[in-house]
């Protein structure tokens, strides 16, 4: 079993609403987990990573995930999440929910007329929303996860 009971979300100061542009060249090849083609590495367009993940600056916040209950969705302890509050919380989406006074990361699920907060880790049970005070804080759109060797 895990040390942390749920995956919680901690808001990170401010998500910049207006930023300096940071363009990086986009290579037209998709990254294949096999053999890369050297012919693919020509420049196609510039990509601004911030603009790529922040579609609605006024409603977008960055939060830090803590805990391992959402591993199955690719949300690991310490990851940075991009949250868009303007999006609708539909079943299947990963959401930040204010539950018992805490911001928690979960996947919204619907069975018949009932809604559940599902974890993406077999060690955790789904939480039925019926009769509980909970409200959706925002919809998680992207996860920034550092791989081994990434500078801190």
């Amino acid at each position: 079993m895990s040390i942390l009971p749920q995956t919680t979300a901690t808001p990170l100061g401010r998500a910049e609403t207006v930023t300096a542009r940071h363009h990086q060249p986009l290579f037209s090849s998709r990254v294949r987990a096999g053999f890369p083609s050297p012919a693919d590495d020509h420049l196609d367009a510039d990509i601004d990573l911030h603009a790529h993940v922040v579609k609605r600056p006024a409603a977008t916040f960055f939060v830090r995930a803590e805990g391992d209950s959402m591993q199955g969705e690719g949300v690991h302890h310490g990851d940075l999440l991009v949250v868009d509050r303007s999006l609708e919380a539909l079943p299947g989406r990963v959401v930040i929910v204010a539950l018992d006074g805490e911001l928690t990361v979960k996947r919204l699920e619907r069975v018949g007329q009932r809604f559940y907060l599902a974890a993406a880790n077999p060690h955790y049970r789904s939480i039925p929303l019926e009769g509980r005070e909970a409200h959706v804080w925002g919809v998680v759109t992207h996860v920034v996860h550092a791989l081994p060797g990434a500078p801190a």
Partner: protein
Amino acid sequence: MIALVDCNNFYVSCERVFDPRLEGRPVGVLSNNDGCVIARSNELKALGVEMGAALHLLSPAIRRRAVLLSSNYALYGDMSKRVIQTLAEFSPHVELYSIDESFVGFQGFDPVTLEARGHRLRQTVRRWTGIPVSVGLALMGIDTVWQLREADPKRIRRAFSVVMERIVWELRGYPAITLDDMSAPRQQIMVSRSFGRQTYELIDLREAVRQHAARAASAAP
């Protein structure tokens, strides 16, 4: 038609967005140095805490019940910017009036749709930013500059501000707005802080006066 959009208990609402535990509780935000209460949730207002109340004068019972937070102006500035950006989705004419109040111009919009627009605006700001706002639409029936000129200056001052009242006087031909820009020397410089707790020592006072006098002198043009 111009709408006045006013963020409810703005600093407290900003803090609540990021800490759901503050919902439904008496919450106050304190001035620099935690001297006095400068924003109150409705629950704190209901406890009889006045705007500007000094922290050290609050009763122990209230200090136990209430959550009193130091101010975080970087956060409030960011949230204010987000509210403005959201308002800009509703009209090209958005005028920031103060950190928590804005004017939104609805000139040229069908008046029949305005009430629904106001409701949608309120819901959208709440959802996107988490900030509850009030929208004042029927601004005393003033749609034109002429109507503003004819309005009662005292009522205008109560409803808006002394600045708006001066505009009424200007429109009537009486100079009321002075150009007190860089050409006029500053008449006073204020550096003020409250003590964090009650002080009985003259030496503490002396040190504080010395320090603030030095800061005021360095702020002089």
